């Protein structure tokens, strides 16, 4: 429960940052993920989910408030994908996801190096 609570708090923190224009907030929050989930197997999906969540919610809110159909088609056209509106949606969610994932992975990997070195030192001293 404590893990779930922490993850939810982190996700809300990232979302709040994004809503205030700090679009890179998922990366920063992702850096803190290993504090609550040290196993990389857990930390990485959590980081990715936080990134996805914090970019998906405002996008979904935009769809509810304004309807994003014409916008997705226009963005796809500007990007050179004709009128394939799925492209900007997927791209947007991928970027958000990658930001959270990258933060979590980087912190997790750094944590492993620090902890691993400490353990080797400890074993050598035995």
């Amino acid at each position, binding site marked *: 429960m404590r893990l779930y609570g922490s993850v939810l708090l982190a996700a809300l923190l990232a979302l709040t940052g994004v809503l205030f*224009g700090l679009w890179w907030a998922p990366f920063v929050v992702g850096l803190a993920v290993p504090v609550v989930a040290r*196993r990389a197997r857990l930390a990485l999906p959590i980081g990715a989910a936080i990134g996805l969540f914090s970019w998906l919610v405002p996008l979904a809110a935009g769809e509810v408030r304004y309807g994003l159909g014409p916008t997705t088609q226009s*963005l796809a056209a500007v990007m050179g994908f004709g009128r394939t509106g799925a492209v900007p949606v997927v791209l947007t969610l991928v970027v958000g996801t990658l930001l959270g994932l990258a*933060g979590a992975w980087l912190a997790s990997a750094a944590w492993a190096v620090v902890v691993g070195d400490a353990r080797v030192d400890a074993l050598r001293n035995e």
Partner: protein
Amino acid sequence: MTIDTAVAEPTTAHVTPAPRGRRRGRLAFVNLAAAVVVTAGVLYAAFMPAGPLPALGPAFNPVTGAWTMAADAQDTDRTVKLAGLEQPVTVLLERDGTAHITAQSDHDLFLSTGYVHARFRLFQMDLLRRQGAGRLSEIVGKDALDTDRFELQLGLLRTAQAEWKALPTDDPSRAALLAYAQGVNDRISEAEATHQLDAMFTLLGYEPRPWTPVDSLLVKGDMTQTLSFNDVPIEMALLSKSLGADLAADWFPVMPPNAQSPYDPGPYAAHAPAPIAATAEVGHAEAQTASALYQKIASLPASLFETNGASNNWAVSGSKSASGGALLAGDPHLHLTLPSIWFQLTTDSPNYHTAGVSIPGTPVVLLGHNQHIAWSLTNGENQQIFYYQEKEDAAHPDQYFWKGTWNKYQTVGYDIPVLGGATQHITVKLSVHGPVISDRGLTTTVWWAGNIPSQDLGVMLRVGQSAGWQDFRNALRGWYSPTQNFVYADDQGNIGLISAGYYPQVAKGQPWLPMSGTGEYDVAGTIPYDDIPQVYNPKDGIIWSANQRQVTADYPYYIGTALHFANGYRANEIHRVLSAPGKLSATDMQALQTDTRDYLASEIVPVLLQTLSQSQLSATEGAAADVLRDWTSYRMDADSSAATIWSWFWSSYVDEVFGPWWRSRAVGVDINEVFETLGQDLEAWTLGDRTNRTFSAPGVGARTAVEAQQAAFRDAITLLTRSLGPDPRKWSWGRVHQRELVNLAAGSLSYGPRPDRGDANTPLAAPDFPSSDGPSWRMVVDWGTHNFQGVYPGGQSENPASTWYDNHVDTWWDGLLNPMLNAGAAAGTSGVKTWSMQP
């Protein structure tokens, strides 16, 4: 072992510690290195633009990125607080986006106009000012560098700065420009604070800098350039060199070779006609210089230069109108873009009550009406540009010889920031004639009326305040460039037309060729205002202009050659319709604006059919001739097969007659660029000189117009059979002729191409394949019923997600018009949104 188990597995005392620990350590470092690399990649893509891709984070995040396009597309009632307003202003937005601004002071009117323009068109405005200032490379990279260099050489920025500097402090247009700039900047600040900047700013990764009055003057300069900057003398030099002075003068004469309908038939002021000398031989050095400059200009975007116009306007006096009031119609033809160059609005303040269309970036209604008069424009097309080849000498570096002395070139330096590259520096040299435009071969400078500081915005403000012809005509006295045919109709039944602008006159020489810059051939003045083409209340009650030469051969001044003016077919057709017996109505005006009758076809097709009746024809050729024989309307309609046959024949005919000359003389000018003038020659010879020497082209031997027509018809039918199949009845015009409205930023956001009617000769002009030039605004005014109507192809918003992006296109395409309501009438319509603007 996986990466995470290397981190997570507990160590035990039974395992040999050192090797296992080292392996774990290595894996952890490998993992970290991979994480660092991937993270760096993700962050780089998120924060930094790469090639055509923007920085993905700021561009695509759903709160402040390009997705704000969705919120920006919402049109709601609003209360807006604007810095600089003196009193509250009301902006009504009709269901279709037409804006009605009502202010209690002139200052507030212009400020609000700036705000409204920027609210809907800020990116377009930024592009326009960047184009004029040579700053496109800063946002799109080195692809725009040649354009930027050319613009800085030409000098729109210098002219705009000089115009602003010359504006007296108490001039109303100065106050208007300042207030307008403040309104634009109020919107920029608001958009930045609320993350509502146009998505294109986000995608290109930059923010607009504050708007200044000079920016508005740059936008005006862009239009001047598009409408009056051309390289006709350069082309003429190349034509003269390759064809010889004799043929060049014969094919590209000063006076049009065909019968036209000038609107001002005279009599003219009793001046002695200016002597027109025969075209001189062009030397090798001059021709090489011209060739280099021609290629340089050809490599730049065509939209920077004047093309053959296709605009129309006309007026009918109260005595000839069904309503008893004067009628006015105008449809200026420009490059058709999305967003459109126009923004429709009405403006009301203590001193201004105008309705019509404005150019975003400028504070005035350019085409429209007020309570008493209506006006519209077509391009005047007279020669406003002269090229000079400066005399230089190695003994006098950086100097030119002028009026007996060596003079130093002035120099101006500019830095051009380039996206993704190093800032480029250029130095522009200026002689007394103007900027050095080319220094390959002989140094060439350009004298262009558009470089003379003029207060055109002030002129338009006074036009908007005019209550009658004298006010209107007096206001236009200050209009210099580009020369425009201003048509006029008022609420008293009067009509008029004046081709306002500079008509530069050189002391001597041949201004249709590059001239020596030594002083004898300098511009000595302009035609006096009272002598420029103009008419007021003509006896027959009609006036028309369609870029044709405005005056007859009796006009005593040089104003340009046949290469400068349109071929006259639209003017002839408009004159034909207007001069028919009977009264005319607003509906007739609307029908004439969408008239697809090809006047040239009506002259030539009967001659061709006569020729074909005496010729041996194949089955397909015979069937095609039958289709033409049934074509008595001469209308270039989308479902007409005859239209296709006619168009292909005419192109083939021009090529059949002139192509051998072009090839044998290695003419360095693209034949398509002089197609209209060659067509006028061919028309005149086909109708009245069928044995002209030109038909006997090099390599084809002696022949007449008849043999040339037969060969051209065979070629046309062969080409059409190959591309459209063997049945001429299925060669509908719409299969080969489309129209499109081109989006300024992305081709996928363009409208069309769709099959459409018209060609280069029809009042509803649609040149090229596909055609992206045409009527950029149509307006019909009936002062008898006080009925004002207009439409432009596009919509008020540049945001492609907005319902106002292209909502007028279908109405325009179908040839219909929308009512132009005043603010009071608009308030009573359904779906109106109200912006309450507070100080």
